[in-house]
């Protein structure tokens, strides 16, 4: 019933909304960088030492310090950094001696690959498990599912990783071991995306593909188990909310079959919060896979970031934070958009 005037007002609002979004996002990024930057400075590790090493002379030390720009005031350093980031330059990592952007292009796809397969496993198993448990609230299926999911909350990742390796790799030999590829396959396919499966598929080399998959399955399943736990729990709880609503009874009054009541009437409204949950746990997998990456010698961003921080390698820390922060913001943005698309109430 919107008149033209109110339509115009709405359009104006959404334009303001987009502008506002850009400004807010930019400010969030700036804040993110500022905090990361200053965290980097309070870390009691001298970044110069990472470059010149333990035995350098004072003169070499000072020279490196000046070369790294550390002699200038913090604020100047920060704005310089922001300025070069805006020009697309993330600087050079002092612990790998390479441009941070190059490093990130290498490590981020590795984590992305593992986390993506992980989240897929988590969704494919977690959502139906949660729905199922909700429809059988209080029955043994539900209890078992809850205990299982809670186990996912409680088991240390590296423990599960090592035990998984010992069992499935060393014991049963079902999967390939740590690393992304067996040594023979290393370098056989050109790395276009740095996502092994995609690279192998692009090159049409299915042996490499199979090997990469075999390496990927175990760590991804373990990540999947963690997200599964979270996703299943949240699904169950959302579903319980919906199943208690009056419109579910309305659907039953109409004689709608039970599967339709569950999967259409109850499930449709929870897609949106579920997407948010999945998005959050996806982002959490991206940043939180340090342990799994260490255990599986997976050259991913979690490891990269941790190593960089421990060496006070600020360009690398900032670059990686920027990437992870962008993923967070991107995921938030996507769930916002999906929210608008999927939930008519939000309009």
């Amino acid at each position, binding site marked *: 019933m919107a008149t033209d005037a109110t339509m115009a007002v709405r359009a104006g609002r959404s334009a303001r909304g987009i502008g506002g979004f850009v400004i807010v996002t930019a400010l*969030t990024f700036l804040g993110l960088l500022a905090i990361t930057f200053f965290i980097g400075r309070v*870390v009691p590790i001298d970044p110069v030492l990472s470059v010149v090493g333990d035995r350098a002379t004072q003169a070499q030390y000072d020279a490196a310090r000046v070369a790294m720009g550390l002699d200038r005031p913090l604020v100047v350093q920060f704005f310089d950094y922001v300025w070069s980031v805006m020009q697309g330059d993330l600087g050079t990592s002092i612990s790998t001696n390479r441009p941070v952007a190059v490093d990130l292009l290498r490590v981020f796809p590795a984590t992305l690959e593992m986390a993506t397969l992980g989240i897929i496993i988590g969704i494919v198993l977690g959502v139906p498990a949660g729905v199922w448990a909700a429809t059988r609230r209080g029955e043994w299926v539900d209890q078992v599912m809850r205990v299982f999911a809670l186990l996912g909350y409680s*088991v240390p990742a590296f423990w599960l990783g090592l035990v998984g390796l010992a069992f499935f790799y060393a014991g049963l030999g079902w999967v390939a071991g740590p690393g992304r590829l067996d040594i023979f396959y290393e370098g056989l396919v050109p790395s276009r995306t740095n996502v092994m499966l995609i690279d192998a598929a692009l090159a049409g080399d299915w042996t490499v593909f199979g090997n990469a998959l075999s390496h990927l399955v175990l760590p991804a399943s373990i990540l999947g188990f963690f997200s599964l736990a979270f996703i299943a729990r949240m699904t169950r709880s959302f579903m319980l909310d919906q199943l208690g609503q009056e419109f579910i009874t309305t659907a039953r009054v109409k004689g709608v079959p039970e599967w339709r009541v569950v999967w259409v009437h109850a499930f449709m409204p929870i897609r949106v919060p579920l997407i948010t949950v999945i998005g959050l746990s996806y982002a959490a997998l991206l940043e939180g896979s340090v342990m799994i990456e260490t255990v599986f010698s997976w050259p991913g961003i979690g490891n990269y970031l*941790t190593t960089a921080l421990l060496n006070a390698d600020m360009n690398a820390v900032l670059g990686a934070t920027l990437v*992870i922060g962008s993923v967070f913001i991107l995921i938030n943005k996507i769930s916002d958009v999906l929210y608008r698309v999927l939930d008519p109430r939000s309009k």
Partner: protein
Amino acid sequence: MSPRDWLLDDSPATLTQANLGRAWRMTTALLRNPLAVAGILIVLLLLATALFAPWIAPESPVGQNLRTRLLPPSAEHWMGTDELGRDIFSRVVYGSRITLMIVALVAVISAPLGLIIGAVAGYFGGWVDRVLMGVTDIFLSLPKLILALAFVAALGPGIENAIIAIAITAWPAYARIARAETLTFRNSEYIQAVRLVGGSHARIIFRHVLPLCTSSMIVRVTLDMAGIILTAAGLGFLGLGAQPPLPEWGAMISRGRTFILDQWWVATMPGFAIILVSLGFCFLGDGLRDVLDPKQGSEK
């Protein structure tokens, strides 16, 4: 009149009776939930272990004996010994104190912090909300372990600093929840009624808004305990948690991980302890949610 009737009385004569009655009703509801009971038992076990550690533990948690290192579980050492010949069972028992401290301090620091920030943002809305939530989002999108790592690195390693660091990373999630919840009732008539009788903003936030967020916060925090213990373990894994020789469970697992293939008990025993306690808190949290959540509980 039996005490039970007194508690369940529909028309309590005093405020105490009313509150006790409510507590009683919630307790009985909780006790009817088998998983919640299991959770309560585990948490009580943790408390008892922490309290009576010196009487329970057969040995000192720091007493080294390099000649009896890495012994498998046996009658003498129920959980075996670690790389410095210390009795793992004794260490796990004493470690419960540290775990309890982590859990309690984080609950005391980050839950209230998140609660207040979220409630203030949600209640005032507008630019206050935007600023506070902007800050929250920044903290939320900073990688969590990294933030904790950085704070520990800045403050120096040590268990207290690890706890503070974890608390600092935990509040944004609570703030978001508290804000979302505050939004749902900030325009409600009972809040407007307080404004109408002249109540100040501070009074409304502290006396009326916060109590409503608290119950779901309790639930969230108990659910998060598992995560908190594991984050502490993660910091321990990176060497930034408890200082040796403190028997912190996460640090114990982290030290034991190189032995996991041959002396499995070194990492696994404290691992079991963490799993048990996390499960305990999770079950309790689940149970509390069922009792406190008006949508699902018996209260209308």
